[in-house]
């Protein structure tokens, strides 16, 4: 596919760094204190490379979403260090962290979280506006339309979220996540609210992003979705239980998830 230089699906011009894109050391997220304390992530060490499609799996309450939120910078660790794309994000101020998120990470939520008052194009355009104020209105609009075209929604740019199906809304969310061409995409149960067909479309979209040098972290309990990952990290009780390499049949390795899926 021919892509424009600013297209979200254009290959990265700079070579991918050799250092891991995500490096978590002794990462802990705890709520509350004393006996009432709840552990979300418990002393996790994790390293993710560039252009990897990593699935984080585990049963409910295992800490996979919390780990994803920490990596995406929408939650803060209680202790430990977290370096993403060359930046220690655990110590950033709230506004610095927001700025960092806008430029370095794209997030896809299970519930889409599109702004209901903005059209599909405006939702995508907003991500550019927030990440880089120097981008002009015309360029923003072009990039938004390109991103929507890349997810197959070029003809629905003027629709409001209320006028789109669940699958289409999630594709808008993917377009919003990739428009700034971040090195990292974190997708938390991206197919959880979609039917099977729509889920496949979204899953394929996300998997394809690794081809352009983007690291994709998929948080899922869908064994089939995890099956296509380069690497699977299984969480249990807030800790990394085990790593499964590419090619392993996740459905067989994680029978409980297979049943669930």
């Amino acid at each position, binding site marked *: 596919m021919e892509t424009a230089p600013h297209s979200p699906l254009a290959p990265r011009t700079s070579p991918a760094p050799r250092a891991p894109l995500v490096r978590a050391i002794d990462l802990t997220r705890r709520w509350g204190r004393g006996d009432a304390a709840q552990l979300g992530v418990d002393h996790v060490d994790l390293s993710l490379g560039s252009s990897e499609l990593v699935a984080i799996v585990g049963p409910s309450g295992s800490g996979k979403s919390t780990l994803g939120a920490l990596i995406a910078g929408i939650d803060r660790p209680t202790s430990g260090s977290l370096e993403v794309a060359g930046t220690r994000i655990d110590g950033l101020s709230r506004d610095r962290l927001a700025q960092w998120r806008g430029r370095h990470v794209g997030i896809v939520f299970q519930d889409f*979280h599109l702004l*209901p008052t903005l059209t599909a194009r405006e939702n995508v355009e907003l*991500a550019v506006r927030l990440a880089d104020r120097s981008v002009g209105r015309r360029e923003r609009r072009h990039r938004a339309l390109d991103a929507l075209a890349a997810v197959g929604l070029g003809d629905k740019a003027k629709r409001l979220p209320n006028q789109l199906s669940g699958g289409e809304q999630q594709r808008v969310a993917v377009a919003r996540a990739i428009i700034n061409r971040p090195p990292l995409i974190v997708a938390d149960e991206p197919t959880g609210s979609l039917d099977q067909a729509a889920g496949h479309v979204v899953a394929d979209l996300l998997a394809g992003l690794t081809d352009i040098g983007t690291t994709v972290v998929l948080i899922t309990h869908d064994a089939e979705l995890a099956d296509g990952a380069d690497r699977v990290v299984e969480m249990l009780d807030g800790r990394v239980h085990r790593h499964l390499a590419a090619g392993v049949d996740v459905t067989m390795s994680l029978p409980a998830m297979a049943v669930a899926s």
Partner: protein
Amino acid sequence: MSGMLRELRRAPARILTSVLALALAIGAIGVLAVPAVAASSLRAAGERDQIPQLVLTTTELGDDALAALAAEYEQRDDVIALEGQMATAIDVPDAGVVEVVGVDIGNQRVDVIDLDTGRLPATSGEVIASTRLVEAADVAVGDSIALANAGSNGAASTTIDVVGIGNSSYWTAEPVAFVALDDARAIAGSDGYNRVVLTSPSSSTDDLRALADELRADLGAAGVTVTTLPEVIPAGQHPIEEDITQVSVMIGFLGIVAGIVALVLLASTTNTLITERTREAAVMGALGARPRALRRRLRRIAMTIAIAGLLIGIPLGIAVANVIARLVLQEFVGVTPGLAVSIPVIVGSVLFALIGARLVSARAARRVTKAPLAESLRDRDGNPFGRRWSERLLARVRVGGLRARIATRNGWHRRARSVAIAAQITAAIAALMIVASMATTINDFNAAESEPWNWQSQTVVAGSGLDIDRSIADDRSEVAIDTIGLYDDWEIDVRGLAADTEMIDRQVTVGAWFADDRDAVVSEGFASRVGIDVGDRIEVEVASGTTSYDVVGLHRERGRSVFVPTATLATDLGQPEAGNVLFSLDEEPAATPDGIVITDRFTDLTDDEASRNAILLIFGAIGVVVVSVAGLAVASGLAVSVYERRHQVAAMQAIGARRGDIRRIVLGELLPLAAIGIAAGLALGYVGALGIARSFEAADAVEIGFTYATGAIPVAVAVVLFGCVALAAVVVRQVGRRTLAETLRTS
């Protein structure tokens, strides 16, 4: 109770804000109880002290004449008791003008002194001081008061000893020394009485006036002249009740504005709380709950808030009404009232809150229960943006940046809340402008009231008659007459002046200044309100009876005045060569009349701001309540608005929005509403303040005028803008308390 606590746990800040706003509003509405509270205290005191129904001031009336009069009149069914008094005004250094009132101490049946502390006078030179005299002269029981300036005739330069402190309802607003009759006569240099007071069971003003006419005729037959217009106080009333009612009703209107603002807030809060339960209601509906029962359950939220507001607001309202009544009565009457409660106002407040809560919650409850169950169970937001054609149309408008579009579309999406916020800002600005405009108007009225006058001092002689020989005037002074009259049931000032007087600017606005004996010039504002024109003949009742004048001109003087030639008025009053006030163009008149004289300086009189400030203080306090309620309401509305969209806000932050971005979006929503609210508030403030000024004019038939406080506009605008910026910052900070992950997860 447990239901109330359960509701409180759901959204404590929102519910407490609504409760507080409603309680404050109910408290403010409590001001409407002030007249009842004040009247109750005044009437109770009046009944206790046998306040007179008729007061006539006279020339000297001997003991025998009074005894004969009492014997005759006390036989009548419409008279209970008739007594004489001797009252003289004297100047006390550092305490001002003090009335020395001589009564038959210990044997009074009319205008009885209620002794607070000490004892009744037993010997000559002992007095009972009124509370006002105690305050003015700073004395206590056992102290002495020197009566300086006790007359150029040297009749009564003396010292009096305070042996008791007490008041009578009639004199309660004045600094008074109650003394034995002989002492008062010695001070005044008289052997008789100069006041006739009587009590009557009649509550009819007309009957009492007829009685006064008979009494005046009988006094005239005995060679005694009535020197001022008879004072009529219908049984069961107090003379200042009407004034208190007028001011309280005006202030009560501000309370009602606060109440309406609070109801708008209640509507907004309950609407949100009920809408949030759309899915809960749908689940219950799916399980078989009847819509009617569901609606009742949903409406309970508003009723809970209303009941909580009443529980706080009613005691607050009782306290506010009693504090204001106490302030007004102490300031104007010197009475300290006991605690009183107005049942009608309490019942009205309860109905206002409960019916208001029922009404404001009914629509939301009906909407939630009418929505299709399947839709409600599936969709948390029962009203997503884009469902209406106007929203779809708005989504196609690409004016402004993305933030502006978000703000505009959100504002349109939640139109009811936007209107509520704009209305609340309108109420706040209107209240600010009404209070400021009333202050400006009253200030300007006071300045305009004294503007036409040129005299620098006025000297009167103690006593109530025309006691000044007009021949003492020189080229810098003039002996005039200032007396109370009655025209068409309006109490007016009848002012006798020379045709070539220099004490007032004689420039008239219509017609000419008087030249002939029966000519009169009337205050223009009063004339227009009661329908007097140049060329009319007016009948005025004065102390001696009814007399008539031909109106030849209208004057800009702001009071209810009729200016007539001094000689004519003096003749009408039965003393052709006399007057009762010596006006001078100097601060000290060159010659002073015989008797105990009191000289007031023009500047001292115009500087008396105490009563004006008391009214403004009360207006200001209620204005602050309205602004507080409106501020709470706007803050709550904005907080709810942002809270409802917390997931959107978190999503924006997740994709890179900083707090400043969110703040600007919130401000983008709020500022246009603030602009609308400011514009509407300025207009409403103008209309409201003008209405209050006009109603004062209608009630008093004087030309108060109206000055819109344009100087307050920048302050009001700045307050609103600063409030908006501060609110936006606080609200965004509140929303950002939870981590983004938590907020997004709980959607």
